[in-house]
């Protein structure tokens, strides 16, 4: 695939930034101790990390059908990820009997 210098630099910066955000998110998931806190770290990778990586890939592919596919992946993922996070938070509130120790639970 032949890329001009500007396109290559923009794509490289976006993809490298996305990978860096994902590394920070992974580090956060392993370091934090409660499930609610880990959810904050994982959501960081789900939103900005994958967004930057996919934008970089779209810059590489240019205007083509593959770019539309990447956009479809991004749109689907950004719609599905908050739903999953909400369900997991609901599960945690339901099953964790010691939740009052970790955070405030409004009645």
């Amino acid at each position: 695939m032949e890329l001009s210098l500007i396109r290559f630099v923009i794509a490289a910066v976006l993809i490298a930034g996305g990978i860096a955000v994902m590394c920070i998110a992974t580090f956060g998931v392993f370091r934090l101790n409660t499930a609610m806190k880990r959810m904050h770290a994982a959501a960081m990778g789900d939103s900005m990390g994958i967004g930057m990586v996919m934008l970089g890939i779209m810059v590489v592919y240019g205007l083509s059908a593959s770019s539309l596919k990447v956009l479809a992946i991004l749109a689907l993922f950004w719609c599905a990820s908050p739903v999953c996070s909400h369900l997991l938070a609901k599960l945690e509130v339901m099953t964790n009997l010691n939740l009052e120790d970790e955070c405030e639970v409004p009645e």
Partner: protein
Amino acid sequence: MIGTITIAIIALLSVVLGESAVLDISLIYAVMSFVSVIVLSKIYMGRFVEWESERGALEEEKEEEEHGA
């Protein structure tokens, strides 16, 4: 999170190999991870409700024994 990282890796692999058909795998992976999270959390919620009702029944039996004795 592992699913998210896998989606990103497969998409980057499509750029490296030059095959845009690999992007379909990443799209299917996103759909599968979404559906699996919904199914698994519903299963765990249902199991927890069952466990709680069993525990409530056991505690009621213990209280009846204490009152009887």
